[in-house]
């Protein structure tokens, strides 16, 4: 479990990093951020980049900023830096809860949010958050910047819309208005393991009815995604236990799990139902 030989680059500016990436991308040059997925994959010789461009020394990439109704997460923001105070209101509480489900403290201290997004593991919690909340990814290269919406960004199992010469320069998440209700639930074999099913539900309430619903599912299909049929079912209805059950069952029927475990849809239904129940403040087993 020693990686094969590779060249290591430690650029001092973002421009230098982008230039190196443009030059080395054809030779399988890769960005090294937190390294919590890439480095073990290299040790297992599953990933064999010939060049690593280490951005950890670059100044200013670890910013978490709120403005214009958005939370902007820089490429060196570590999982552990995401806290309730990072962003006011329901989004801060939501991200705080999700962070606690990511691996273990040493990994959270080193691994980055953008690294998880670029890695695009179907079970990644941040990918589920980006997909459910309608996040956007800032892709940056020598050719310029572009924003990629989450539904376009995640393209399949550990596959994204990033071009080889592009650095994932940030995640933008819409700040949730006060009063937004949310629930997150996942099931994993052990604390900190990748989820076998994870769901995030976000409800905008108006006068006792659900004005808008976002429901996401992760770790079941080849990428995280929203569940439009269930969302439609909830919209403009008052949340009741029966309605939430019905929505979770509806969602289950639309799933195409990637593994052959016949009980996976039932597990997905459970986490969706529980995420919805938490969001609605209703007790449901």
């Amino acid at each position, binding site marked *: 479990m020693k990686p094969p030989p590779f060249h290591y680059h430690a650029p001092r500016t973002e421009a230098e990093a982008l230039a190196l990436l443009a030059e080395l991308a054809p030779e399988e040059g890769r960005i090294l951020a937190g390294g919590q997925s890439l480095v073990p994959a290299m040790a297992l010789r599953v990933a064999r980049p010939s060049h690593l461009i280490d951005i950890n020394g670059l100044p200013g990439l670890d910013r978490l900023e709120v403005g214009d109704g958005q939370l902007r997460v820089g490429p060196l923001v570590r999982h552990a830096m995401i806290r309730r105070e990072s962003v006011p209101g329901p989004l801060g509480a939501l991200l705080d809860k999700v962070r606690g489900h990511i691996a273990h403290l040493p990994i959270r201290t080193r691994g980055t949010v953008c690294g998880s997004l670029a890695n695009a593991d179907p079970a990644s919690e941040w990918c589920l958050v980006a997909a459910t909340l309608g996040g956007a990814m800032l892709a940056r290269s020598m050719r310029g910047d572009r924003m990629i919406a989450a539904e376009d960004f995640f393209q399949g199992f550990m596959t994204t819309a990033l071009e080889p010469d592009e650095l994932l320069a940030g995640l933008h998440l819409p700040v949730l208005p006060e009063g937004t209700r949310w629930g997150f639930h996942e099931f994993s*074999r052990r604390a900190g393991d990748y989820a076998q099913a994870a769901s995030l539900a976000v409800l905008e309430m108006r006068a006792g009815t659900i004005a808008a619903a976002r429901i996401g599912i992760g770790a079941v299909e080849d990428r995280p995604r929203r569940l439009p049929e269930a969302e439609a079912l909830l919209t403009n209805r008052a949340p009741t236990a029966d309605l939430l059950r019905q929505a979770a069952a509806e969602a289950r029927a639309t799933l195409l799990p990637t593994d052959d475990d016949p009980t996976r849809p039932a597990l997905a239904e459970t986490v969706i139902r529980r995420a919805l129940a938490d969001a609605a403040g209703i007790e449901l087993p």
Partner: protein
Amino acid sequence: MDGLSPRPGEDAPALAAGPGRVVGRPVTRIEDLPLVRGEGLFAADVNFPRQLHMRVVRAEIAHGRIVSVDAEAARAMPGVVAVWTAADVADIPLIPFRATKVRGLEPYCQPVLARDRVRYVGEPVAVVFADDAYRAEDAAETVMVELEELPVVLDAAAPPGEFAPGHDTEPTVVRKEYGDIDAAFRSAHAVVELELSVGRHSGVPLETRGAIARYDAAHDVLELHGTAKKQHWNRDEIARLLGRPPQGVHLFEGHVGGGFGVRGELYPEDLLVCAAALRLRRPVKWIEDRREHLVATNHSRQQSHRIRAAVDAEGRLLGIDDAFFHDQGAYVRTHGARVADLAAGMLPGPYRLPAYRVAGHFRLTNKTPAATYRAPGRYETTFVRERLMDAIAARLGIDPVEIRRRNLVAAAEMPHARPLDALGTDVVLDSGDYEGLLDKALARFGWDAMQQELAARRAAGECVGAGLAFFVEKSGLGPSDGVRVTVDATGAVEVVSGAASVGQGVETALAQICAEALGVDYSRIRVVRGRTDRIEFGNGAHASRVTVMSGSATWQAALAVREMALECAAQLLQLSPAELTIREGVVTRADGLAGPSLTLAEIARGRGPNSPAMRGQTPGLTAERWFWSDHMAYPYGVHLAQIRIDAGTGGVTVERYLVANDIGRAINPMLVEGQIVGGLAQGLGGALLEEFRYDPSGQPLSTTLADYLIPTIAEMPEVDVLIAEDAPSPLNPLGVKGAGEGGTNGAGACIASAVDDALRRPGAITSLPVLPAHLRALLTEAP
């Protein structure tokens, strides 16, 4: 020296019930200082100048004929010193196994490098030696192994296949029988029959294996470092296989980051580094990586049983008839058929069983070879036997606790001889009050009150349950172990043992025993273990034997030194030895009256080789004693669990757990509790998490710790440990029984019982591990 027998005087220490001055007390460990200071010496910490690094090229398919191995490219890589294939080590014989009564296994032993076939993914095919571990791994990647695929055998219960021409994959069937089994079934009120299986899992120590060999040409000694568990046997075999006298080979043990049965056996890599150090005349270091560990180090446990019991109308056992298939993996390793033999010999456990018949089919498959893992053969058969007891209870409508009560061997029946053998010794349950411990455990757990609480929670919709499992362990495997206790001229005490330490606290336990007998401070005693250059023989650390065997030898040797010191002092002080005692290393009057005294240092100096008084005698304040044992000591206990199943996810939460374990006498209750809780973690791993899985072609699917799930602190329940000392062993002077395996033994059985109870479906669980997907499926089926 020779005239001194361990005959305690009236003031000499005798181990009555209850704690002594040091023995029986939870004193802190003497081995911890270097560990907490980061000064430990694990295998990877061992380095020698000019050392080479070995990398193993391993088979990538499960069964194939070797067409060719092309290492030319690897030999040309930078830093590479040598690459060996089977032809280069053709003179090294197959790796042997320790003798048992089972015959016919020799052709199934493993060569150090695969010869004409590979038989499991991970089998060593070639080795690269380079000046750097990275370069060695780079070069190993370029070794081209051409294989012609052969059919794989992955199910030990399927019809045998071919191991090699003329040898099928069933080398032997372990058979044991007593009583009139056919009559038992003819006269039965009911016959209960089950098919049960235990998954493939094993000890996965945090420290992987490692081996560092060095040839010291100046002294003509081959040294092997990073060893564990069984140094003397390994020394003798390495010497034999490499054609050297045993005196010219020495093994050294540093710290060991977990043994659990799998570390310290003689593996191909151990012999390869030794052979390379001799031939290449440079030290050779090999450190196993985690992916290698999960395919190369011994697996364990995998068995399937077809068992039936004949019972009378009250649920009393009349006979048990079991046929099981033991999945040995690709080769016979150093344990031979030991696990299958132990399974067959230990299956009856704590119950009165008039007739018994077992046939253990010892089968080879195209998977990693298997051997012992903490509670070998007992974890499996406790699961099988206790499932059977639960099934009998369900069939006859008898409470699961009551069915066990009716069948437990009674205290009055001890010692209880069974016409059976295990590990080559007759099974004689040496002592025990099984029902007494069951009562204590139920009371401590609050079993009856808990049942009401669980009923209320079930009524509120929760899926909760409780289970129990009774187990009998075995410990203190003989035949012998020797210990030399010496007081030097400064008064320092050294205990030289043939035991080994896999981290369990051997030094502390032996120091406590020595201190108790000799009257010195335990924390200043030096305990030597795990090295062949300080003591000629030793049987190592396995089978929960150290405290029983080396502990008893330590007790006897320390008493002999005590007697020697008192005799010397008595002459000098003109008192009788009976009037003297030793306190804090000083010989004084036993009655506490003032008077002259002598330190052990003064006595040791008086017995020095230059002392005129020693003329004609063997000098030194020292004694060596050997403890012999023909029979094992049998600890026993009960596991009790309360669990909750999340009906939506199939996840199991163990809410509360009790292990009650009678080990005769606890030398250090803190160490015993640590053994039990740590052992339980591994038992729960096998019950709920851990499984080596393979795809249909024999590719291993559990090759990282993200796929092979060991329990972490977050998965561990609140554990209560009840250490009982009701039944000291009559077989040794300390009354001790081993404490290393009871925490593991009953865990699979207990969890299965509790899950059944939570599901309200007796007999639902027929295999381990109990996985969430399986529970989800059970929960969605109509009951």
